[in-house]
């Protein structure tokens, strides 16, 4: 039998992606549509007859009258405007418990005259709620085949697959144009559907608590607190395991490879650089586990609802909440999560301030400097001064993000109104398969990034700090003679006003690859050859005796703002498709970093 290509189309929250997972399982790939950052999810499966069915999961849309890049893609594919994407059959997925809204889109699509099948999804939930649907009647009213699906149950797509396996050609004559689509939906519902109650009782009960002005905010705060605890606590054993594994690998390589440049490239360059980033994989996966569960359950839009007013005041939107939350682990998944914000201005503002959230890669730097310079004394008999400084650094990040977003809103002279219009879907129990596939997808993106961008940067930085080699009989550390070392000396006059010596300047260069690299780079510069942890321990007395406290505070302020993370800049480039945005982010973050360090250094020099 010939192959078939289909596209799943439907309103947001119709269970389309769950149906896509049900049909294609693990055989799916995620890319972007040409020229836009709209996710293009494709997969395939083999029907019983042996026919291969290609499945495209289109972004959710309320209407063909598109209001976001996502909806524009769906419109273009449905109307056959994209040359490289032309599915033979549209499978229009509707939530059987939400027909009042979803059938309107079906009627709109029917007017296109494309071959179409309607999948009545969540038919089990509809039955439980006592919603009775006369399928024969619905089929004749819509003028196209209607099948039942339960996307979250094994075998729940059997009826749809049988339908797709039938002999084509699939034809659906265009429906006559209707002016009042909503009126038509209301008429069809009266004829074919019996609904005892408009909402699910459980949704009403949950919303009464979760959206309560006091209880709702409290539950949100506790949920977020537990999530952060889990990200740090649960990830530690896995991260330690990865660390130990890479350490063993490096030891093995060190034993079997002859000394020389190649060995240095593999151990100091590749293993140290890649290992330093892969270590964050457990944190990222745990964070995404929480986000996916919250998303699948329907809670995330509720959090956006509770916080919208606060975020709007700062020039963001309630939808910015999740991307910014993710950025506390790492700005990269945070910036990727900004895809869920439809409004382009809100999305850009969110992406630009995401690097200000204190990501986990800043912790090693903060820990080193606080340990070396801030005395461990109690404040007001209750708090530890070191802990207070760490807290202040977190708060500084959050406050500056709000201020930056506010200033951007003021400067943009954009007076257009930006809508919220956010659907709060029914609560659902998350399906383990959909969560697992989501984690697999996110983990894959992260690993690919490590394998491409970070790998090449690591090699470049290793080259810079290794060549040219020191002349024979040189006494100073090798890095002093390398290109990176010379750049460090050139940079010193620029950074003198903020109190950085040439050693710090050198460390900032490899530290561009990832923030925590600065710690090991400083150790190298101070020519201590030891493992990372040990180096940090010996580094502490060294820098505390050589640096002034003003320099240390200035470096802390630098790290609150400076985009010492090329991967973040690379992901901004990929997500916005614009070098201008990357330039803007780099410029303002370095500018703020320099300004903050200058203020801190000059004030601290006078007062401390």
């Amino acid at each position, binding site marked *: 039998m010939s192959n078939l290509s289909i596209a799943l189309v439907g309103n947001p929250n119709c269970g389309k992606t769950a149906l896509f997972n049900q049909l294609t399982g693990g055989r799916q790939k995620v890319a972007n549509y040409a020229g836009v950052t709209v996710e293009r999810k494709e997969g395939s499966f083999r029907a019983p007859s042996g026919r291969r069915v290609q499945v495209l999961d289109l972004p959710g849309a*309320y*209407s063909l*009258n598109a*209001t976001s890049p996502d909806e524009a893609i769906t419109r273009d594919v449905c109307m056959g405007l994209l040359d490289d994407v032309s599915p033979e059959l549209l499978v229009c997925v509707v939530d059987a*418990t*939400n*027909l*009042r*809204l979803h059938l*309107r889109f079906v009627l709109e699509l029917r007017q296109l005259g494309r071959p179409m099948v309607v999948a009545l999804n969540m038919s089990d939930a509809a039955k439980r709620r006592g919603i009775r649907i006369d399928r024969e009647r619905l089929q004749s009213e819509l003028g196209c085949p209607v099948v039942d699906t339960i996307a979250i149950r094994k075998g729940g797509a059997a009826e749809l697959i049988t339908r797709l396996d039938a002999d084509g050609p699939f034809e659906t004559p265009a429906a006559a144009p209707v002016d*009042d689509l*909503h*009126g038509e939906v209301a008429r069809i519902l009266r004829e074919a559907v019996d*609904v005892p109650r*408009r*909402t699910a009782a459980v*949704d009403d009960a949950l*919303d009464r608590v979760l*959206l309560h*002005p*006091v209880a*709702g*905010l409290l539950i949100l705060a506790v949920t977020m607190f537990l999530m952060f605890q889990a990200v740090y606590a649960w990830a530690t054993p896995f991260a330690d395991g990865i660390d130990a594994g890479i350490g063993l690998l490096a030891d093995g390589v060190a034993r079997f490879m002859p000394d020389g440049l190649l060995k240095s490239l593999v151990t100091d360059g590749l293993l140290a650089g890649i290992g330093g980033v892969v270590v964050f994989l457990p944190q990222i996966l745990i964070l995404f586990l929480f986000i996916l569960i919250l998303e699948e359950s329907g809670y995330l*839009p509720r959090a*956006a*609802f*509770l916080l*919208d*007013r*606060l975020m*709007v005041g700062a020039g963001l939107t*309630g939808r910015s909440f999740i991307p910014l939350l993710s950025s506390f682990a790492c700005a990269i998944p945070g910036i990727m999560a900004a895809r869920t914000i439809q409004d382009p201005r809100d999305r850009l503002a969110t992406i630009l301030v995401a690097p200000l959230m204190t990501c986990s890669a800043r912790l090693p730097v903060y820990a080193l400097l606080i340990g070396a310079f801030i005395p461990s004394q109690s404040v007001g008999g209750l708090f530890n001064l070191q802990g207070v400084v760490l807290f202040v650094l977190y708060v500084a990040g959050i406050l500056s993000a709000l201020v930056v977003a506010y200033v951007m809103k003021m400067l943009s002279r954009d007076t257009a*109104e930006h*809508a*919220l*219009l*956010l*659907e*709060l*879907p029914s609560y659902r129990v998350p399906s383990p398969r959909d969560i697992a596939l989501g984690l697999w997808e996110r983990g894959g993106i992260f690993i690919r990034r490590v394998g491409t961008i970070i790998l090449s940067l690591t090699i470049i930085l290793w080259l810079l700090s290794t060549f040219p080699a020191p002349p024979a009989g040189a006494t100073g550390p090798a890095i002093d003679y390398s290109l990176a070392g010379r750049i460090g000396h050139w940079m010193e006059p620029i950074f003198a006003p903020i109190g950085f010596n040439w050693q710090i300047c050198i460390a900032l260069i490899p530290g561009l690859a990832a923030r925590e690299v600065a710690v090991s780079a400083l150790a190298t510069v101070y020519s201590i050859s030891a493992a990372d942890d040990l180096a940090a321990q010996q580094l502490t007395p060294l820098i505390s005796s050589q640096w002034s406290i003003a320099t240390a505070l200035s470096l802390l302020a630098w790290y609150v703002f400076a985009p010492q993370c090329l991967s973040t800049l690379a992901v901004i480039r990929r997500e916005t498709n614009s070098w201008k945005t990357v330039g803007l982010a780099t410029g303002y973050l370095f500018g703020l970093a320099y300004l903050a360090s200058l203020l801190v250094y000059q004030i601290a020099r006078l007062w401390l």
Partner: protein
Amino acid sequence: MKLSDLRVGDSGVVEAVDTQADPDPIATRLGELGFVSGEPVRLVARGPLGGDPLLIQVGFTRFALRRAEAERVQLVNGAGASDE
């Protein structure tokens, strides 16, 4: 009376959606989401800060609308009721 004037728990019936500009994509979208003449609506909840945004039940669906969006929706006078 406007949709934004409802009290939490109160219901009303949509009379029309005002267009505040030409074209007004927000008004168009409100219509597509089901805010059309004769449709019953209910204010389910308000946001914790300043009573904004508003959570509106329309058809079988709940939408969060900011006040400026809800102000576009005119309700039939006198058709309100304190519960469904």
